[in-house]
């Protein structure tokens, strides 16, 4: 299990491969991988967005992410997981968050990866400030519930 906060842009696919390639043993039990990648869009709530600054609470953010992943491990049969979240200045098409969960059976990988994302969106101390196309800045007010299609 790995939880990482990054200040620089990263390639999610490269990260997954590097992470898993470093692992040895027990790979024969891996039947399912569930992955979610959150990417910065160039629009939000009707406005063009040029960039974003992601603030966090060093110490508390890591602590909350660890609690979330532990809870997922408690609820589902997880072999391994990787969670990476960007902070600092981010631009459209860059990855904001990567969640990958490895399990034997697909139900666990699907459920746990989604749980981690939803819990992160409601519990982990991160705050987005958007730089709009107009030059104005605004704080993103609220995350939506991702269990409902928008």
């Amino acid at each position, binding site marked *: 299990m790995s939880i990482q906060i990054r200040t620089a842009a990263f390639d999610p696919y490269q990260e997954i491969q590097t992470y898993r390639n470093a692992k040895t043993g027990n790979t024969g039990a891996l039947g399912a991988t569930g992955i979610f990648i959150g990417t910065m869009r160039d629009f939000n709530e009707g406005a063009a967005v040029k960039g974003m600054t992601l603030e966090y609470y060093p110490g508390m953010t890591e602590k909350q992410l660890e609690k979330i992943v532990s809870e997922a491990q408690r609820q589902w049969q997880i072999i391994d997981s990787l969670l990476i979240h960007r902070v600092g200045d981010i631009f459209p098409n860059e990855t904001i968050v990567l969640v990958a969960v490895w399990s034997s059976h697909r139900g666990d990988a699907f459920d746990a990866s989604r749980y981690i994302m939803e819990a*992160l*969106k409601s519990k982990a101390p991160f*705050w987005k400030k958007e730089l709009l196309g107009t030059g104005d800045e605004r704080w993103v007010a609220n995350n939506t519930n991702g269990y409902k299609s928008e």
Partner: protein
Amino acid sequence: MSINLRYFASLKEVAGRPEDNLTYTDTLTVHEVWKRANPDKSLPGNTLTAVNMEYVDFDFIVKDGDEVAFFPPVTGG
């Protein structure tokens, strides 16, 4: 007694500073900590509060040495 205060995101702008130190002699809840440290500003209704990096309610009673944080709803992911 003394506690450290931290403000994040829009609450940092409301408070006008990122951190703070408050000395006190009586019993204070988190909400009272805000009022003592920011007497001229009401606490926004959707504010989240943490003591020593764990979420707490507004009526949680702080103790000497605590780190008390105020921030808006989180918007990561």
